[in-house]
């Protein structure tokens, strides 16, 4: 994993003079393109029906459910720390921002094997409501993630943009978790 060359600001970006919407639009377009690209790939390639098993688990779905649950927990950590950074809850300290960043990095990295399995072995499917919802949000999530990462590279976005991007990621992951893991364990 890469080191962090430049720490992100410890305080919430203040809505300030000279915000620019142009880069936000570009980031949004790129994120959208990523989502659409994933969807098109998932739809057009023939699902292989198999993929590498992640060692140590009884089977593929269990491994995916376990990893996805870790990701979900990390994303909840993300939400709580973000609320702290933005002063919505009394959570302060030098550790909050690093925890936010590293939980995010870990979450997205852990999500990759799960997503690749979905995309490579199963593809974008639409044979019932749960499955199409899951497929759509799977593509959506990584587009939202790309959008958020691109937003983070700049300080001059309007103040509402970053929370929106984070909220999109959270919503996407929640929808994915509910339509797959909750289904796997409880239905």
């Amino acid at each position, binding site marked *: *994993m*890469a080191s*962090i*060359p*430049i*720490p*992100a600001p410890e305080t919430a970006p203040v809505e300030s003079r000279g915000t620019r919407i142009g880069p936000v639009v570009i980031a949004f377009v790129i994120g959208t393109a990523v989502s659409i690209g994933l969807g098109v790939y998932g739809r057009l390639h*023939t*699902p*292989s*029906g*198999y*993929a*590498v*098993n*992640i*060692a*140590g*688990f*009884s*089977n*593929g*779905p269990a491994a995916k459910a376990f990893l996805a649950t870790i990701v979900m927990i990390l994303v909840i950590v993300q939400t709580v720390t973000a609320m702290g950074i933005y002063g919505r809850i009394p959570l302060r300290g030098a550790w909050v921002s690093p925890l936010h*960043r590293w939980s*995010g*990095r870990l979450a*997205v*990295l852990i999500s*990759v*094997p799960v*997503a*690749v*399995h979905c995309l*490579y*072995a*199963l593809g974008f*499917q*639409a*044979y*019932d409501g749960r499955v199409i919802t899951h497929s759509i949000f799977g593509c959506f999530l990584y587009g939202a*993630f*790309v959008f*958020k*990462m*691109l937003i*983070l*590279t*700049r*300080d001059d976005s309007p103040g509402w943009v970053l929370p929106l991007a984070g909220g999109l990621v959270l919503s996407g992951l929640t929808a994915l978790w509910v339509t797959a893991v909750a289904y*796997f364990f409880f239905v």
Partner: protein
Amino acid sequence: MKHRSPLITLAAVAAAFAIMFIVNMSVSPPGSGSSDTANPSAAPATVAATSPAESTQNSAASPSLSPSKSVEDSKFPSKIVYAGRAEDGAGAVAVAVLGTNAAAYFCDGRSVESWFRGTVRGVDLKLKSKDGATLQASLNGDHLKGLVRINNERVRFDIDEAKQPAGLYRARGSKTTIGWIVLEDGSEVGVQTTGETSTPAPELNPESPQVTVDGENFDAAPVNGDEDL
């Protein structure tokens, strides 16, 4: 001011995606090892589940299905056949399950057919044909709901258990293969293929499943989930 660390994160994630894809693409299909190595206990069970060969029409559920991981994974009865018409009258679908193996057949009764093989995982079935068509289905109560993708078309189905003599039949000769889906109401949908040419199948009497095509006699047999198609 600009920050580079999110871009590094992004690049790391893209690289992780690429690596996982390459790893996945280099893996051989199930059965030849890789996916089983992580779960060695499943391997003997799979062998046991596939061993009962060409069983006769009324053989009961395979006796060698010992309690094992791979059988627990299946939410299907250990031996069952589903059959029915596809939605929109696009043809018929039959799916045979034995243990964790599944075989299936889709045909339109005129000129399109495909044989599928695959495995069961929980309530889900994923099958592929040699020519790249796919069949995916999930157990929904006691019926099977899914989708066939063939020749860039999608055919949906929602089918029930087919009790003998309904079910899936297949006959194989030197050059010709015939498949029949016999439905609960006694109607049949079938296609025969010789070389590249597919035509409607001759009528099959499931009680005495012999047919003659171009002077060649065929014995049709019910297809089980572990059939090598």
